[in-house]
């Protein structure tokens, strides 16, 4: 049996008056990769950004319901956003390294936490880059600008940056949508490798990607969960007609 890491119960989400998520109930399991799939605009990013309270920075949002992370209610503890985000990291759709050196990008989270020990920072930066399969490519130019890297390398840098503070859960919002197939394959390999230590939740519009990498898949349509099950089950034996239509490409 797998442990549940995050439990979403009765979640409604609004941008102003416009409701985006409806009554979402969903579990994410420890050390598993869960994919969120669904047509564009169905609320995948919104749901993902509820999990680290990233939506909080948008004015006028409203959240009803509960999200439990290890029994800890994410939306009850008012002032712990910073703590939540240290435990639940995020990688964005477009690679977004800071305008700093490669080294300083990876060390950012540690510096934010007030880590001063130079040797410790160096060690963690190296380990994080290694975990993100980037170390060999950048070890001779850690002080170059992060913008000097290719798109795929920048995205792996962003993964290394997230890994450096050793988050429990990693959220990824279509991390490969701007990348070519080779760069995509590298990231997929790396996600499969790091799930031993982290729980991974990934939004993807690419069903093949969901099939390739995830243990569980959730199909979302118009802000509602249509189907959630083991990936093989969902793709080979969908229970819901809507899911069947989607994976058979009726939706384009």
């Amino acid at each position, binding site marked *: 049996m797998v442990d549940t890491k995050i439990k979403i119960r009765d979640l409604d989400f609004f941008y102003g008056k416009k409701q985006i998520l409806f009554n979402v109930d969903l579990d994410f399991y420890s050390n598993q990769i869960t994919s969120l799939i669904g047509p564009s605009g169905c609320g995948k990013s919104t749901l993902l950004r509820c999990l680290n309270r*990233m939506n909080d920075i948008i004015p006028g949002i409203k959240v009803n319901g509960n999200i439990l992370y290890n029994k800890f209610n994410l939306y009850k503890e008012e002032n712990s956003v*910073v703590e939540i*985000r*240290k435990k639940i*990291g995020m990688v964005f759709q477009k690679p977004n*390294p*800071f305008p700093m050196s490669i080294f300083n990008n990876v060390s950012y*989270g540690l510096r*934010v936490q007030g880590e001063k020990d130079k040797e410790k920072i160096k060690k963690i930066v190296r380990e994080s880059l290694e975990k993100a399969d980037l170390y060999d490519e950048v070890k001779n130019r850690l002080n170059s600008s992060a913008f000097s890297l290719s798109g795929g390398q920048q995205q792996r840098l962003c993964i290394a940056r997230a890994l450096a503070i050793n988050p429990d859960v990693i959220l990824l919002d279509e991390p490969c949508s701007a990348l070519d197939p080779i760069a995509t394959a590298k990231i997929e390999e790396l996600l499969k490798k790091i799930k031993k230590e982290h729980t991974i939740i990934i939004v993807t519009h690419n069903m093949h990607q969901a099939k390739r990498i995830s243990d569980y898949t959730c199909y979302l349509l118009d802000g509602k969960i249509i189907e959630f099950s083991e990936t093989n089950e969902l793709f080979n034996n969908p229970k819901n007609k809507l899911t069947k239509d989607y994976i058979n490409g009726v939706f384009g």
Partner: protein
Amino acid sequence: MNQQKKIIENITKKWLFLVSLTTLVILIGIFFLLFFTGIKAFSEISLFEFFFGTNWNPTAYHEPSWGIFSLFIGTLMVTFGSLAFAIPLGIMSAIYLAEIASPKVREIVKPTIEMIAGIPSVVLGLIGLLFLSPLIAKLFGLSSGLTGLTSSIVVGIMVLPTIISISEDVITSLPREFKEASLALGATKWQTIKMVLVPASLSGIVAAIMLGLGRAVGETIVVLMLAGNSRAFPTSIFDSVRPMTANIAIEIKEVIRGGLHYKSLFAIGLVLFLMTFLINFISDLIIDKHVKKYKW
């Protein structure tokens, strides 16, 4: 029909070309006038005396002196005095407006600040004369409130809108992704501002400061009204000073056209021109670099 359109387009093009050409010719003409009149002063005044002499007294009965050093220091004092005041205030306001103020507050405050830029400087000078100068005299126990400090503060207020408005634009135009990435790593709002947003906009902020600097160097009417205009070598910000711009404005009325005094004022104008030219040139370089860095 098409033929007609083409002709009109052609005429418009030529006309616009002519207008830009005229502007260019006039600008070059001004520069040459400044240059060739100013340079003539040095046939009679030694470069060394001009730049390093601390006495400026072209109308002395016995031996006139031509040193602009005191005036130059006056210009520097007012320029840097005003920036010392405008830079911290400007950057803090820009950060506040860009990252902290609610959209409503920003909508009201930003246009208001930009409006200050539209107040004629003579009006600001008047306000300084009536309110600030007596206050400064009283506060520091001076016999006169017309000092380098007084004009610095008012010139600072003049350049503040430029610094705030450009810096705010630079900060708000940073990709939203920088901020999100930082917050997602557990940084607080302040850490994000300090460690990501300000460093990322630094070259833009520097460019804003340089633009303010250019304006402060060339400002004339405010210093004429508030700096006191003494030609003595200034030793502190509480002294009366006479920046180069004010000196030209004061003396140009009383010189004989074509005389040495006349030429020497043009030479001072040339120095001012070169200073602002250099400042603009440097800020262009910085802005250029900034734009390239964030093509992203």
